[in-house]
């Protein structure tokens, strides 16, 4: 990956990273979007889309509710899409499933790291508010602007760092894992699909498995299975 591409993916990581909490919460931080865009930057959007769709199944569990700590999928997914597209560009189609498994695994770990970094940002914002407490008590509008700008700047730095962590050391780890894979590629495919669908099924059950929505979930599964049989 060239320095220009790394800069482009990092910029994308910042956009999707600040989207999660800071501005504008338009859900560009969802892995379906971020990974597709990451792959698109490196000229292979479809591999990014495949990784994004699988990570989106994991992320169905992630509801960014208030003070809860939740994984930040945006920057890791953007970097994962780019890393996989870079692999396809280098002619790595045969090892695609082990590569996908390794990249999604590293992205999941980076998403946890992202959740932890959000906690740090919240604490840093709290410390900044403490420093401005006296001006806030006086109703100084410039204190509000300074706090909002400071929070935004911290989140930009956090998102950039998280993207680079996934892109550089994360990329090295993912490639090393994929290169050392000895088992049949189909095993990686089975495991990745089973884990992604398992998380989605578990999340769907927790969200909709009781009361009136349970019937709709069952109906959706029936329609989806029928559609899958017809389409395949």
């Amino acid at each position, binding site marked *: 990956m060239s320095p220009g591409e790394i800069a482009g993916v990092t910029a994308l990581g910042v956009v999707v990273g600040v989207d999660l909490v800071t501005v504008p919460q338009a859900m560009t931080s*969802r892995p379906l979007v971020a990974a597709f865009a990451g792959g698109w930057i490196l000229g292979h959007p479809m591999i990014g889309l495949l990784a994004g769709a699988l990570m989106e199944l994991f992320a169905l569990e992630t509801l960014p509710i208030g003070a809860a700590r939740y994984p930040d999928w945006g920057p890791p997914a953007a970097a994962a899409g780019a890393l996989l597209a870079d692999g396809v560009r280098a002619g790595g189609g045969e090892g695609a499933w082990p590569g996908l498994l390794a990249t999604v695994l590293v992205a999941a770990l980076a998403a946890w790291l992202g959740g932890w970094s959000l906690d740090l940002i919240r604490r840093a914002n709290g410390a900044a508010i403490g420093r401005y407490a006296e001006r806030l008590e006086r109703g100084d509008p410039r204190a509000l602007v300074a706090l909002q700008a400071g929070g935004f700047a911290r989140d930009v730095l956090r998102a950039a760092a998280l993207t680079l962590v996934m892109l550089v050391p994360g990329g090295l780890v993912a490639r090393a894992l994929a290169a050392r894979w000895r088992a049949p590629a189909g095993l990686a495919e089975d495991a990745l699909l089973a884990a992604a669908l398992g998380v989605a099924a578990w999340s769907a059950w927790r969200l909709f498995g009781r009361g009136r929505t349970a019937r709709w979930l069952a109906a959706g599964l029936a329609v989806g299975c029928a559609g899958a049989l017809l389409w395949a």
Partner: protein
Amino acid sequence: MGLSGLRAVPGFAFTTARLFGLQSAWSYERMLGIGFAHAMEPLLRPLRGVDGGARYRGALARESLFFNAHPYVTSVAIGAAARAELDGEAPEKIARLRQALCGPLGALGDRLVWAGWLPACSAFGLILVALGAGGWGVAVFLVLYNVVHVALRLWGLRAGWRAGMRVAAALANPVLHRGLEVVGPLAALAVGCAMPLVLVWAAHGAGLHLPWWLTWRHVVAAGAGAAAFALLAARLGTRFTGLTLATLVLGVVAVGGMLWR
């Protein structure tokens, strides 16, 4: 005050823009408080000339205190509190109004958006992707989701502003209640439908010409694995999130794949 409509207030456009950055200074101590006051500030500017700016500064100090609700519908509280400040309501009444709105607005947004509209749109995007729409599936997801997202923020500001201290009436809006009734079943249907379609699409190599021999064997194996995984997650309950468990499983598989002989 003579402020009959929101458009008559010069700060309307600025407040609308600032609604999208409500959580920039989110902290455990004040949660949305700083963003709340920052977004409301343009609407309070008519108060700068009253009492030498004391009412303006007093209002900003009050409005920057603790507030917590869903970020999209916090605009209801911002509109209502701004109206109350401009109408000269007693500070204690405004503080009680803010406090009273936290719970209902949080519950409304969580049910309507986080547990309803977001999974519905995400699943709809996944269905389109699995049916071969490619990047258009992503675009439809973003457009669909954000039509409601932006509409909620704008409606909230207007509804809160119109109602002022009587904002509870705005939350009884029949469209909101109908939305709450419909969005859960819609999300359940879409998520249920998306899972098998994505499985088959991915197992077929997602149109990427990846190796997909014995595709149906993979579909069955992955489907059975997913069912086993979900049952295990259910058995473990709240001790592990699905993602924690999946990360552990994938980690074990990655190590196993390296040690394979």
